[in-house]
């Protein structure tokens, strides 16, 4: 049954997934080319010192891409479910309702994970050509909250779309905006790596604690608090 739900979700999002995958690949490709060019036009010592002392991220252009990816995937996946109350079809299936909702959400998270994994591997590979592994590891740590922001926005889209009450939707939007904003704000600090090392565990835990909120929205939807 879960296989069948995944089949339906895949048909729904496959074109969007391909487009988002392409977007991420193009951005990473563009970063690779511009990083290569920097090493042609500037001397390596200047680039290294900027990277080490100012944490000048060569892949800063990627910053909002995981967020945009999560946002678009969430909308494409959940809008058709809520349009004309199609979610009733899924919740009427002879299957545990929580299992149905979590299967839909976990499949979306899995697709995001695939895209983010490719991004990370590509950045690590490109960076590995020019920088030492210590620098790359630190940079990847800094980028981790960007991916968490992507997961978070996707999860919150699923929760907000299914929630039937507008007042709760607005409250969830405000809380989500505040939470996700924190994941980008650390980049302005010079000691970003240290800062992220401290806050990352909290971000990771909080992001995935959000996931079961979909069950609360699902329960509200079933109660029909419209």
């Amino acid at each position: 049954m879960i296989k069948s739900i995944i089949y339906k979700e895949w048909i729904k999002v496959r074109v969007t997934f391909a487009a988002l995958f392409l977007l991420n690949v193009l951005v990473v490709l563009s970063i690779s080319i511009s990083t290569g060019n920097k090493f042609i036009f500037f001397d390596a010592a200047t680039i290294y010192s900027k990277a080490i002392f100012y944490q000048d991220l060569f892949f800063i252009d990627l910053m909002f891409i995981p967020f945009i990816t999560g946002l678009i995937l969430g909308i494409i996946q959940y809008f058709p479910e809520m349009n004309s109350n199609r979610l009733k079809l899924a919740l009427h299936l002879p299957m545990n309702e929580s299992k149905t909702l979590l299967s839909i959400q976990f499949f979306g998270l899995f697709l995001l994970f695939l895209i983010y994994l490719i991004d990370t591997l590509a950045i690590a590979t490109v960076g590995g050509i020019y920088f030492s592994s210590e620098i790359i590891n630190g940079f990847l740590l800094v980028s981790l909250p960007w991916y968490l922001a992507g997961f978070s926005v996707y999860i919150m889209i699923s929760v907000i779309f299914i929630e039937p009450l507008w007042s709760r939707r607005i409250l969830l939007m405000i809380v989500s905006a505040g939470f996700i904003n924190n994941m980008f704000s650390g980049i302005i600090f010079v000691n970003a790596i240290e800062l992220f090392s401290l806050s990352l565990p909290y971000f990771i835990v909080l992001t995935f604690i959000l996931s079961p909120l979909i069950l609360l929205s699902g329960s509200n939807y079933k109660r029909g608090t419209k």
Partner: protein
Amino acid sequence: MNDLVVQVKNLTHHYGKKCVFENMNFEIKQGSIFGLLGKNGTGKTTTINILNGFLEPTSGHCLVFGEDSHNLSPQTKARVGFLIEGHIQYSFMNIKQIEKYYSAFYSGWKKEAYWELMKKLQVTENQKISKMSCGQRSQVALGLLLAQNPDLLILDDYSMGLDAGYRRLFIDYLTEYIKAEGKTIFITSHIIQDLEHLLDYCVILDYKTVLLTMKIQDFLRDFKQYKFEVVNDKIELQKNDLIKNYEIIKNKVTTYTFSGMNEIESYLRSLGIDYKDLHQVPMSLEDAFIGLTGKY
């Protein structure tokens, strides 16, 4: 007791302060076709939503196959086929994909029933549902329900957006479906005339209240329309136990009642109304429905 598929007990629902209905009671027996009739806004879809567990009633109970409708087990859900108002399905799928999708959920899936209907549409397997007409989409939804082969079919306004041909097709398939042993249908429609020869029982809703629950044959036999003319066109009638509804246009009066002509005559005489040409007018189900609920 075991042959009761649906039991609605003292069901009351409010949206905020607005009362939709109060103390609704009815039971649906296995093997029957039960119609929920009412004008727009009288709570038909609300009742269907409660019955399918998509709305928690303000008070009262609704049992489907003996289980609380808000907490149906997967086993019971497999026995209930549900048509959402407007024949809503996953329009991003094509007709082959959607059959494959649903078939995994139902052990007794009858794919022949689905494909038999699809053949009549003369569309390819790759036909996307979003590109189909409203009538064709209704056949996809019906085909999926027939393939599911549920014991109880709940149809929320199956006639919405359908022309006469597709409506007739729908009714023909439902008639065939009900012939199978033990199948039960709960149906709403805004086109009452289509249901006249289909329904066994009906509940008629009015704003905030249930007007009646009875066998359709009894309703058509016992509910009568009498017309007469009055000499003085300024008469006053009132709805009561005898006169369920009435209409006065100039000097022509129409009354609706469960009583006989003698009672009506006695009543008119008791009011001192000078009338002539009192006669009964036969009614279709739609006439009777409008007679009971009124035109407004």
